[in-house]
């Protein structure tokens, strides 16, 4: 056997596999099945959790095999890459022909070659021209007319660009996948916690610090509630951007209203409160009544010596009841934690023998921003936009070619022959109006 033949065979096998629809359907279903795993098995938990839940052997196996982070494991990425290749191969394979078909207008010669669909005759004295013009105008919109020796040909087509539709859809999907890849490799996604009044010139990505070429200051963070309830109405961060210490711009960042500056986008991601000074408590034990200053997260001995207390956490609006502090009371044994509310001293159980009333909590809010730079988003959105015309062309624009050939018969009558081609599927099953997209 000659050499070139041997060489071309494996290539065509590979090409044939890559462009096969069987591969596509197989990959789609495989990806669906793998995606299910990721929703059933908790993702990105510490390995100990899997060991506790599935036993040491299975837990370790799941963790090592990547199923605990399945969407970023080879199990998922390999079929996705293969699907992208499959789509790309199909586009390369079929797009030239589809483009040729979309750019080839219906010519009278081609129209004459369409299969015949019916015949109409008119009497010799009738003039069929106005009727034909009206009917074709109604059914087709635009059509052309040409005389060919003894014949007159009316012809028109609809949905010439339909063959491009599926390719636009698949190019759109490739754009979306490319956007995801670009974001993965050239994007940055990190966190920036900022105290009220503080300025930062860097943010964190995982455990690394990424410098910003400007500074950002949190002037104020506010959380407002509906009717003093516990449903938050708005999280609002007033920010100032500075360059070399000079104020450049101010902005308000809310959920659903991110702020962009210097190539990064800041999203209101989270918030919290911490004490900015000691918390003032009134401690009651029998007749003893004393005001105590409790520094945040430091153990303090209680008057009377019956135990110690620590302020662990503060909250600006605890379950809709206003400012509160989480105290832990220890008296030798296991510490007991409880919330003490500033505006509702009677609410909440306290372990005793002491009774604690909150006099003042010096609260300072901090805001957590997600800081992001993703050059892939534009690609993804371009994919979204390209998908729509593609879908319209592919499914809502059936390709039709029609021609009406008008001749005089030997008896002097007018005879019209209707020629036309409609997509295959439309003929097989009446309600569907679309054809297969491969030529």
């Amino acid at each position, binding site marked *: 056997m000659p050499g070139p033949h041997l060489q071309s065979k494996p290539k065509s096998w590979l090409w044939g596999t890559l462009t096969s629809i069987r591969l596509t359907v197989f990959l*789609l279903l495989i990806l669906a099945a793998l995606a299910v795993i990721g929703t059933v098995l908790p993702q990105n938990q510490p390995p100990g959790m899997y060991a506790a839940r599935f036993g040491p052997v299975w837990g370790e196996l799941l963790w090592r095999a990547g199923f605990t982070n399945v969407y970023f494991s080879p199990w998922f990425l390999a079929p996705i890459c293969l699907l992208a290749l499959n789509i790309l191969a199909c586009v390369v394979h079929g797009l030239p022909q589809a483009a040729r078909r979309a750019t080839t207008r219906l010519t009278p010669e081609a129209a004459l070659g369409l299969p015949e669909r019916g015949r109409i005759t008119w009497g010799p004295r009738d003039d069929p021209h106005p009727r034909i013009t009206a009917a074709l105008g109604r059914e087709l919109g635009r059509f052309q007319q040409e005389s060919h020796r003894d014949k007159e040909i009316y012809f028109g087509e609809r949905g010439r660009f339909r063959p491009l539709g599926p390719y636009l859809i698949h190019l759109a999907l490739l754009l979306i996948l490319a956007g995801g890849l670009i974001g993965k490799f050239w994007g940055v996604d990190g966190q920036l916690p900022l105290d009220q009044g503080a300025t930062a010139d860097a943010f964190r990505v995982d455990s690394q610090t990424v410098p910003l070429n400007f500074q950002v200051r949190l002037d104020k963070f506010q959380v407002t509630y509906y009717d003093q309830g516990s449903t938050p109405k708005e999280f609002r961060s007033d920010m100032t951007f500075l360059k070399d210490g000079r104020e450049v711009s101010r902005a308000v960042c809310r959920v659903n209203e991110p702020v962009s500056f210097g190539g990064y986008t800041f999203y209101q991601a989270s918030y919290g409160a911490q004490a900015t000074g000691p918390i003032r408590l009134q401690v009651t034990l029998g007749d003893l009544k004393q005001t105590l200053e409790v520094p945040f997260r430091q153990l303090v001995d209680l008057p009377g010596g019956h135990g110690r207390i620590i302020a662990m956490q503060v909250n600006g609006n605890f379950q809709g009841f206003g400012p509160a502090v989480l105290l832990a009371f220890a008296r030798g044994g296991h510490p007991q934690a409880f919330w003490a509310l500033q505006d509702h001293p009677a609410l909440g159980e306290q372990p005793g023998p002491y009774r604690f009333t909150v006099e003042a909590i010096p609260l300072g809010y901090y805001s957590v921003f*997600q800081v992001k730079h993703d050059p892939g988003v534009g690609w993804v959105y371009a994919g979204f936009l390209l998908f729509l015309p593609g879908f319209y062309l592919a499914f809502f624009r059936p390709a039709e070619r029609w021609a009406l050939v008008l001749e005089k018969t030997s008896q002097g009558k007018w005879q019209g022959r209707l020629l036309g081609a409609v997509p295959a*599927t439309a003929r097989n099953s009446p309600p*569907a109006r679309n054809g297969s997209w491969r030529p």
Partner: protein
Amino acid sequence: MISQLFGAVMLIYLCVAIFFLMAELWSSDRLRAAARFLLWLGLGVQTAALLGRWWQSYHLALGHNPAAAFSEKLRLIILQAPVSNFYDSLIFFAWCLPILGLIAFRRYFKGYLGALLAVLSTLLLAYASLGGVDSRIKPLMPALKSNWLLIHVVTCFLGYSAFALAFGVAILYLLQDRRPRPSLPAPPILDGLIYRATILGFLLLTLGIFTGAVWAETAWGRYWSWDPKETWSLITWLIYAALLHARLLKGWHGRRIAWLAVLGFMAVLFTYFGVSFLLSGLHSYLT
């Protein structure tokens, strides 16, 4: 008051289902006409009740955010569309089903298919009214305050409804395939209807995923975060994509496509209910 109206609509849809069924069994045109009339009546009452809920929710929000300018009011109206919690979504789904059925398959919305769709709507409303679902109108959380909320929910639920239609027709197809009844549409017609409904649903689901992605990008800075709801919508999308490819390029027809449509709808149901209750995430209705 308005939630009682939804209860009444549930009873009307139940009657629609019974009438369609009886009309089919006794081939009575009068019963069919009665079922049609009841269907329109139920739809009218449900539309009115939905608008009423919208009005209530708008006025509640107006109390929280006094708006003077027309543009502010308009934004508030868009934001306060009754599509923001589980109860809302159930009644909206139950409304989309007959609407889409009447628009897309007007001629076939009768008999077993009509009964099946009416039963689905009845079940959704029954769950909303009797299933202990919280029907109170609550002020919007900051994350939901977005112009994308309405368009995202509308496209998703219209998509679910289109898939429900495909499912209904697929069930009918499988019945017809086993024991044909001349009074029902012939299998090739049903096959075409499954395909049509699937295309519509696929387009709407795709739009729902796209609008959700754009929204997530502005709210959380991530257009895709592998949240269970997102993932399950992708699974559903993949199944229907497989169906369309199998049909258009491998020439699959009939029973295999019908079974795929049934499988796809199971995925839709899991995306809607399963994710909300069995898996936790950004879309969980329990938190």
